[in-house]
């Protein structure tokens, strides 16, 4: 496979890889690095690519694995952020957000979900993959995907209505 041919195959979904990486890693720079890393890895597999049914699904799985590895090694280092360290500021934060961008508030809620739910929300609600594809990418069964998705959506709803009521009360 030639280089420009490869780029042609990759470009329809490279943004999706990037958004998935960003969902997990949060930082734009790290997500860019991860995407490049995955694409280069994909390129080195060049010869076997044409045998694959879906290069996109494969690339998504690679991105997921790469990012989870990154997160694991980051956590293994001693740079852990203890969550309850900043709960105190939550109240004023909510108030700030009441008049701030409500969209970024949704982003914050999603970013606080467990990793698996983050992945599923990203792939279903943002990238609009079918359940079958998500199950394949995450190496899970479809029912488990649906259950996790429902749980994630309900958590988002809960947090959203919480903040909404907070504004009224």
């Amino acid at each position, binding site marked *: 496979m030639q280089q420009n041919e490869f780029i042609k195959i990759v470009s329809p979904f490279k943004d999706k890889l990037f*958004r998935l990486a960003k969902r997990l890693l949060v930082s734009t720079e790290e997500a860019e690095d991860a*995407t490049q890393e995955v694409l*280069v890895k994909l390129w080195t597999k060049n010869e076997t690519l044409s045998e694959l049914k879906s290069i996109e699904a494969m690339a998504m799985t690679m991105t997921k694995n790469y990012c989870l590895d990154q997160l694991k090694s980051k956590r293994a280092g001693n740079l852990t952020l203890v969550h309850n360290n900043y709960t105190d500021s939550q109240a004023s934060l909510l108030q700030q957000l009441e008049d701030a961008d409500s*969209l970024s508030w*949704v*982003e914050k809620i999603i970013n606080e979900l467990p990793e698996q739910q983050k992945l599923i929300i990203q792939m279903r609600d943002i990238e609009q993959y079918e359940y079958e594809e998500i199950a394949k990418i995450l190496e899970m069964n479809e029912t488990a995907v649906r259950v996790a998705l*429902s749980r994630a959506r309900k958590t988002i709803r809960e947090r959203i*209505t919480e903040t909404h009521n907070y504004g009224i009360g």
Partner: protein
Amino acid sequence: MALDNIEKILDKYFEGETSIAEENELKDYFSSSDVAQHLKPYQPIFGYFSQAKEQQFTQEIPLQTKKPNKVMWLSIAASVVMLLGVSTMMYFENNESKQFVACTPEDSPELAFEQTQKALALVSEHLNTGIQSVGYINEYENSKNKIFKK
């Protein structure tokens, strides 16, 4: 769009039972301007989903063409050089040792004499290097004696 229909889809949505088409219906509904008051809280969720899809990967894809091949060739070249080096070394060493040809003095006294001389020279040369190092030890002895005058 009938409101109770939207509510029905929304319930299905939270149970994880909606199809892509139904989810798009929700997205359309919440991006419109007339969202029912009690559904307003959900608006940012769907707004965010549409917005999040806009982000793009703008970096270059760093593809080095045939990089693994280059590494392969380099390693082949290195091993060939190594092989050549080792074999020439072996060759010269063999030559040196072949200088001593096996023969008896009866066959050719001159050759035997020459060989013996060579062998003796080799031995004495090695011996000299040994003696040289002994000379250093003597030097130590001398200076030691100078300091600790007996």
